[in-house]
């Protein structure tokens, strides 16, 4: 274990109010801990205190007036198996969850951790963005809710203030078919995506009335391919339209070269994955 990761205090608040008061008092020197599968691997330096979210009662998936509410400390294995998420388009979230890491890690990792860690390759974030999810944040002065697409500002960076915590992920009533696809190297199941995409299509009589194309691991955060979405709107969703949208999505990707793949390979794979994902979404829309 890194010698720099030696926080000297550990808190286990049993209310959100107490948790954010602690964050506020500790002024950026505290880190929240949930599943630990990112924090205890990263072991960041300069952490004086840990705040365990384990007894804040944030482990739930429930439905409130058509909105699906998922507590931030809900583990990924529960997301995989929730009956509230069975059926399209919501099932795209379990689909993404099942592709994440390994069953053992999914028993520990939480949806809030996946969102707050802010990896551009975070699988759950893609599916959540395809479902137009928003996040509910709590601070000592009160709460705010914002669209997930506005939550990340860069690699591992979010809009969270130092005294603010993510309490809940909200999925509005949604329609259509959706899909999540991920390309990764197969040497090890724990590796993150080279490219991942999630799409949602809602069609009426074959004509697209709503489209989402979300791209992962090809920019500093998950991005919506806006122009590609525009190419689908009001069109009859046929193979030609899908191909054009997929190529446009690749244009909107702005990947980098890294140890997993080159930027040019990633761009080409965006086109392939988006095409396949749109085909699946269209099929599930009809189903």
């Amino acid at each position: 274990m890194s010698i720099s990761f030696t926080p000297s205090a550990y808190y286990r608040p049993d209310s959100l109010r107490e948790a954010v008061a602690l964050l506020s008092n500790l002024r950026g020197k505290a880190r929240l801990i949930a599943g630990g599968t990112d924090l205890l691997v990263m072991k960041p330096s300069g952490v004086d205190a840990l705040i365990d979210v384990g007894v804040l009662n944030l482990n739930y998936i429930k439905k409130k007036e058509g909105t699906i509410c998922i507590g931030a400390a809900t583990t990924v294995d529960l997301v995989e198996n929730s009956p509230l998420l069975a059926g399209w388009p919501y099932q795209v979230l379990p689909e993404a969850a099942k592709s994440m890491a390994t069953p053992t890690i999914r028993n520990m990792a939480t949806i809030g951790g996946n969102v707050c860690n802010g990896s551009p390759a975070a699988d759950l974030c893609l599916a959540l963005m395809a479902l137009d999810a928003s996040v509910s944040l709590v601070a000592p002065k009160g709460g705010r809710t914002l669209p997930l697409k506005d939550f990340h500002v860069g690699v591992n960076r979010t809009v969270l203030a130092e005294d603010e915590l993510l309490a809940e992920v909200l999925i509005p009533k949604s329609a259509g078919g959706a899909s999540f696809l991920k390309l990764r190297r197969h040497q090890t199941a724990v590796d993150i995506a080279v490219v991942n995409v999630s799409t949602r299509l809602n069609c009426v009589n074959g004509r697209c009335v709503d489209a989402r194309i979300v791209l992962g691991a090809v920019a500093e955060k998950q991005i919506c391919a806006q122009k590609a979405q525009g190419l689908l709107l009001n069109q009859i969703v046929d193979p030609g339209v899908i191909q054009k949208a997929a190529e446009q999505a690749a244009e909107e990707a702005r990947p980098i070269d890294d140890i997993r793949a080159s930027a040019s390979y990633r761009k080409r794979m965006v086109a392939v994955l988006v095409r396949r994902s749109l085909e699946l979404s269209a099929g599930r829309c009809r189903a």
Partner: protein
Amino acid sequence: MTEIPIRICVNGEWRDLTVKPYERLVDSLRERLGMTGTKVGCGEGECGACTVNIDGKAVLSCLTLAAQADGKQIKTIEGLRKGAELHPIQKAFVEEGAAQCGFCTPGMIMTAEAMLGQDPNPSEENVRKTLANNLCRCTGYDKPVKAILKAARELRGANHE
């Protein structure tokens, strides 16, 4: 430095410990309780040698803080056998030759124990998927997979009696 008092139930026995804020559960088990069956491999959640079961689920004790386990039921490899008799999964590992150097074995067996608790009749594919977090550099995976399927049959039979 705050020392944190915790109470954890390890293999059916409640234990009171005082731990550091950043102390990993695997270190409490090995160094404070002398239970060295649980191994430390990579320390980063990749190899699964440190797998234990908490409240019936397989988790990595190198990525779990001891303080997070406060109040929880923990099962380790030491808790499986009954007296002198090995657990059916342990027995099947011996019979199938599923251990070579043995370092990954406790983690594999604890992963299997949690899996069979949830799914007494897993397909071979599911066994392989569930073992994705347990790396073996000796025998590979065929023998452990065979052993787990054999133990599953044995356990199902025992439950029918």
